[in-house]
């Protein structure tokens, strides 16, 4: 009983107007706390952490790289979830939230890729290696691009929501499949193409204390990125809702004319 009322209360936010009103109220909080966490985390990480014994100052990149990588993946999961909600319960806000999240996901993927590439140059001696993790990220990037391109290409919003949702579903399955395929592929002929595995360079297991030194600011940064993500998605969803409303109003004018 309690569960169902709670669930119903949650679904109420699928009402566009209510969603807008609520986000209007909570957004300032999200913006502010995201900014605060990011500022604290990044300044802490950048100015007040020591260099790693093997990686030197480059370890500071971790404060951007890891949160971005985390969010890049989780943004896709969020899109998968909201797509499912759209397909099953047909709440428009849900579909629009997926649409709003995709560009944020792309930027996160890009940041992870860019910082990784910049990091790889001194660490591995190359900008890019076909390491399984990097490769599956690249594939994720392609999935994002396709998803966004499909949204942009279709005019009717409901059609677009349906098609992109199915694409997100099918794409998720294939993305996971790709991950396994890529893992298999790069162990295949060439074992350990990159000597420095990602796990090896954090030094997490050997140097507990150093790890903590890096860990806390990293945690703050992750929280900051998550808050920023939430703020951006809520804000952008509001924008998408209004854009849809504009479409409907224009159509209405046309019918009236």
């Amino acid at each position, binding site marked *: 009983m309690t569960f169902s009322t709670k669930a119903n209360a949650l679904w109420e936010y699928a*009402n*566009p*107007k209510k969603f807008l009103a609520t986000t209007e109220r909570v957004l300032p909080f999200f913006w502010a706390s995201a900014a605060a966490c990011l500022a604290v985390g990044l300044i802490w990480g950048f100015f007040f952490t020591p260099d790693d014994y093997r990686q030197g100052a480059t370890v500071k990149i971790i404060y951007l790289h890891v949160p971005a990588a985390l969010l890049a993946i989780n943004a896709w999961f969020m899109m998968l979830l909201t797509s499912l909600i759209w397909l099953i319960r047909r709440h*428009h806000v849900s579909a629009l939230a997926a649409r709003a999240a995709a560009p944020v996901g792309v930027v996160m993927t890009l940041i992870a890729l860019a910082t990784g590439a910049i990091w790889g140059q001194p660490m591995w001696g190359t900008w890019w290696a076909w390491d399984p993790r990097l490769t599956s990220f690249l594939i994720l990037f392609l999935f994002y691009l396709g998803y966004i391109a499909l949204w942009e290409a279709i*005019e*009717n*919003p*409901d059609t677009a929501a349906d098609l992109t949702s199915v694409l997100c579903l099918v794409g998720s399955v294939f993305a996971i499949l790709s991950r396994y395929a890529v893992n298999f592929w790069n162990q295949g002929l060439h074992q350990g193409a990159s000597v420095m595995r990602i796990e090896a360079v954090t030094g997490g297991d050997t140097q507990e204390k150093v790890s903590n030194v890096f860990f806390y600011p990293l945690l703050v940064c992750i929280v900051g990125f998550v808050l920023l993500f939430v703020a951006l998605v809520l804000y952008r969803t509001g924008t998408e809702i209004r854009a*849809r*409303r504009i*479409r*409907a*109003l224009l*159509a*209405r*004018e*046309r*019918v*009236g004319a």
Partner: protein
Amino acid sequence: MTLTVTDLSIARGGIPVLQGLGFDLRPGTALVVRGPNGIGKTTLLRTLAGLQPPLSGHITGAEDTIAYAGHSDGIKPTLTVTENLTFWASVFGTAEIRPALEAFELNDLATRHAGNLSAGQKRRLGLSRLLVTGRPIWVLDEPTVSLDVSAVAMFATAVRAHLSQGGCALIATHIDLGLDAAVLDVGPFRAKPRPVTDFDGDFL
């Protein structure tokens, strides 16, 4: 096989175009749908054919009984006239294409590639497809486009024969077909805009 439509509202591109439509189409009768350009005739016919869902309202008797012919004919230019017809005949599980060829005087063109037909000849081929569907309800969108006078007469004859066998037909057209049919003017059913304040309603 009566097609019954009650309180139907339909939308195109997410925008309501017609609302409150209701009519019966009984065996042996034809109904001509009229209305100015852009009112929503094509949308109505596509909805009846099951190609798009209605916004609200009910359609009964449309399941697997409708043969639809829209603005485009579904004709393959690289197949001959016979091959085109035979294909549709076997999709609909009917065997005989001879009557269809005869009804639209296509015998002389039977071995021609459909791509080499003139506009009117192509249209005649498209219409002859209706005869091989074996479906009782014909839903036709401007069927006589490009047809000359004698071909329009052929079409009228085909429709009359279909009606006399207990079929029925719903035809959207701007011209006079010479058929003895009731007329449904959809003009008065134009969808009224929702009030501006109906924020959520805009999401249908």
